[in-house]
């Protein structure tokens, strides 16, 4: 527990934590307010069945879904970079070396480090979601959209589970960044390789959808799809996307797999730097 709380304290004081969550919140608020200001007087589109009407972003209870999708979708990419930055810096700055030289267990240290990252990601998702909902209320008022669905009990009851699933999907992406940076032993290399992997998978999905649907970012995205909702995005996968329940299992598999790789490497690595 000492290591876990130490990990949390380090993350709370780390500028990268607040920069990451700040950018995510800033983007979300900007988009929601811009949509709110832009939809004033318009009605929902009905012509194109596949098109997503921007007004949905400020129309409750559907707005809950949209904000959560944004938070976990873009948040996943941010979590990837964040996980890579934290793990990579332990090697780049030599702080992992110092802990090992003090007799600390390598596996325990890295596990505590990852768990503290997962907790911070959970806090970031929650904060972003709450701020996003507040921004959507403001946007709805700007756009003259009713906020009558704000207290929709069915949606609100479902929210904790959806937030939990969203958190799992995002920390899986964070675990990938964590593992890649651990293998690379570098912040920058980890972030760069992680982002390349993210976009590479998205690009490959165009040509190899039946394979890519099992890959980490696609399953993370598929696990968040709500039946009947109109989702869009890089890894939506369309008809080839896995069902959410299967995707959830694969999210767990990728999460555990990425962590095991990171821990095994940390345990066996010769620390020469």
């Amino acid at each position: 527990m000492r290591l876990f709380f130490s990990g949390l304290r380090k993350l709370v004081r780390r500028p990268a934590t607040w920069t990451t969550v700040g950018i995510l919140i800033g983007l979300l608020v900007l988009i929601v307010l811009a949509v709110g200001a832009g939809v004033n007087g318009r009605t929902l589109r009905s012509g194109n069945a596949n098109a997503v009407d921007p007004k949905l972003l400020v129309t409750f209870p559907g707005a809950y879904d949209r904000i959560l999708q944004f938070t976990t979708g873009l948040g996943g990419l941010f979590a990837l970079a964040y996980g890579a930055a934290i793990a990579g810096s332990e090697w780049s700055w030599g702080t992992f070396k110092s802990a090992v030289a003090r007799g600390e267990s390598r596996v325990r240290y890295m596990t505590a480090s990852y768990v503290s990252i997962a907790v911070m990601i959970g806090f970031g998702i929650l904060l972003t979601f709450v701020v996003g909902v507040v921004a959507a209320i403001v946007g709805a008022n700007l756009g003259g959209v009713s906020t009558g669905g704000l207290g929709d009990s069915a949606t609100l009851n479902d929210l904790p589970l959806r937030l939990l699933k969203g958190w799992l999907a995002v920390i899986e992406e964070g675990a990938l960044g964590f593992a890649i940076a651990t293998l690379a032993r570098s912040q920058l290399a980890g972030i760069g390789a992680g982002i390349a992997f993210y976009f590479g998978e998205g690009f490959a999905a165009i040509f190899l959808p039946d394979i890519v649907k099992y890959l980490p970012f696609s399953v993370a995205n598929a696990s968040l799809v709500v039946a009947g909702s109109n989702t869009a995005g890089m890894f939506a996968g369309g008809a080839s996307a896995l069902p959410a329940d299967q995707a959830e299992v694969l999210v767990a598999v990728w999460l555990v797999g990425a962590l095991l790789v990171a821990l095994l490497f940390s345990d066996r690595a010769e620390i020469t730097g």
Partner: protein
Amino acid sequence: MRVLTGLIHADGGTVEMLGRPFKRGDRHRLFEVGALVESPTFYPYLSARANLRELSASGAHVAPRRIEELLDLVGLCDRANDKVQGYSMGMKQRLGIAGALLSDPKLLLLDEPANGLDPAGIVAMRDTLKALADQGKTVFVSSHLLAEIQVMADVVGIIASGKLVREGPLKDLLAMQGVVKVRVQPNRVDAAIVTLGTEFPAERLTESDRDEGWLSVRVAPDLAEAISQKLAAAGIFVSGMESGTDLEMLFLELTGGQISGEGNFVGLPASANGDASAGKGTAA
């Protein structure tokens, strides 16, 4: 040192630490060890106090007041709340030493502890390490600053190209490597060498390249008086004299003058004297 701190694993031989074998997986034994391996490492966005606090979360348990004691010991109390990224090299080095001392170790491993320290800092560091040794702790220092080692160490090991070529109490090693330096009139140096050459082997007599009129006789320091008398009897009067022992000379003798396995330093051409050709001097 990396093997001793569990950072890398020996691919051969055995390791013994504090009198007992140290094997892979014996990480709990590192609770008795404090180490500063290569450069000190910290979270740059945290203060010195916070860095020590977070470091103390790993390994052996550390009482919170120990952090304050160490900040005081290394003279960082006034800057303890400043972020480490604003620290000078010397301050980081002092903080690194504090980090190594966190768990009050029985064995302290320090790699180039004087790096970046100013002269006052070096003296303070030396006094601190001596005080720790007086408390019964073993202080193991790896350094290229042989003069510093000479005034600090009790036991010395000399490593050349990765091999331990000599090890033993410093006094014993230096007894074999005394030096008497004498200064005579520059035009009498050759005569002095001839005179002393009747008493000592020629390879023990060296004229200084840097200081005109100085010559070194590599003999036990207690022969200084006899050398002075010998020169005086030959009508060569000594205007300056130093005697002692020199770890650097011993090192050069044992290693054959090679700098290290990392490559030889190629000296500047004698004619360079600051002109453009000085660029020919390289370090490989």
